[in-house]
């Protein structure tokens, strides 16, 4: 399984992030929004069926977060820390290799 392309950024932000309030609530740390794990908002989760995938990259291209990256064989990898469950990937997938299912925690 490939690593998130943002891994280095996430590690850096984790180290440097401070909650200390600044005048005007200015945010001084670039990329610090990764602190916000937007995956916690999710109701539906994309379920991936590798057998149906034709590696067209449409899900990867359309994901607005982006919470989909590609592994070494160009199959999509879902980053559930940041996937909000919007369903765009499932909607765009031409082979229905992605389906949205209600997530039970």
């Amino acid at each position, binding site marked *: 399984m490939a690593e998130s392309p943002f891994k280095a950024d996430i590690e850096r932000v984790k180290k440097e992030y401070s*909650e200390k*309030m*600044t*005048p*005007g*609530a*200015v*945010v*001084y740390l*670039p990329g*610090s929004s990764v602190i916000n794990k937007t995956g916690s908002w999710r109701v539906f989760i994309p379920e991936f069926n590798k057998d149906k995938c034709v590696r067209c990259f449409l899900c990867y291209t359309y994901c607005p977060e982006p919470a989909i990256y590609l592994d070494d064989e160009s199959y999509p990898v879902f980053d559930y820390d940041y996937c909000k469950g919007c369903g765009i990937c499932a909607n765009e997938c031409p082979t229905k290799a992605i389906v949205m299912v209600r997530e039970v925690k």
Partner: protein
Amino acid sequence: MPTWKVMKGNEAAAWAAKLAKPKVVAAFPITPSTLVPEKISEFVANGEMDAEFIKVESEHSAISACVGASAAGVRVFTATASQGLALMHEILFIAAGMRLPIVMAIGNRALSAPINIWNDWQDTISERDTGWLQFYAENNQEALDLILIAFKVAEDERVLLPAMTGFDAFILTHTVEPVEIPDQEVVDEFLGEYVPKHAYLDPKRPITQGALGFPAHYMEARYTVWEAMENAREVIKEAFEEFEKKFGRKYQMVEEYKTEDAEIILVTMGSLAGTVKEFVDKKREEGLKIGAAKITVYRPFPIEEIKALAKKTKVLAILEKDISFGLGGAVFGDVGRTLINESEKPIVLDFILGLGGRDVTFANLEEVIEISEKAMKEGVEEDVFWIGLRKEIL
């Protein structure tokens, strides 16, 4: 040497802007403030002012452009009044929350309806909770001075809040008075160059301004605005002192006039203070123990000064050109808040007058005194009075 010019209040505001050397001025014309940006655009066109003058399609855009320019890190000025200020409303909170020291001149004018272009304070009073500092000028000289002082206080690192200076529509905006224009070098010394420490753009220092504040952070961000406004009390006093040293004119949070031994003190703001002081002189000659007090700084509200004032007298008569429907005048509410926990306090009465340009006459002030004296003798039955109402047409 400072020079003297006979000028309207609007020109005094434009001159203050010229002396403060803002880099950006974005404004939209509105009666009675139109002359301020008009005069500034003339200064810019003549090469007398090195500023970007941004023409916009509304006041909402004017203040938005000011927020953008200030966030980029330069000194910014604008002017408006009444409906224009009301249209800016939502952006005023943003300017304060982002701690952008924008300075704005206001020709204090009534709000619709009915549509009315004349003076009262409803426009700025209605913006009292936005986090902007508020100064009120008694005359054209004060309009110029209090805009310079507004820049000084707003840009102080302990404050970093936007500021508005109000001067009464027509009574000041369109009335000519002799005004001393201070020397540019002395103003430069007084204000210094604006060097932003937080809000500025630099590709070498990427930052985010105006980000989303979740419930976990929003309260703390708002608290820093509260703290900044509290800090402003001290900073304003320092600025007043330095201003007096450099320019020879004295300003105070609350200016008292013949308040020693006064049984009734008339508390007011803006140009009405001039009328009230003259009235005090007249009544003093007649042997009546009355005094006056002018609130120069309305935000932050001069809490300690009003407490001290209250200790000197039996009645505080608040004369104000604004109304918070269902409560009373805004200044009355603020004075009430100030005195609520004092063990001894005078009678506080509220007099709503001069709305929408209605003249405030000595006859009106005689009525205020009569009501105040009656309350002193017989106790308070009512505490909010509309003075000068034409009851015959109601």
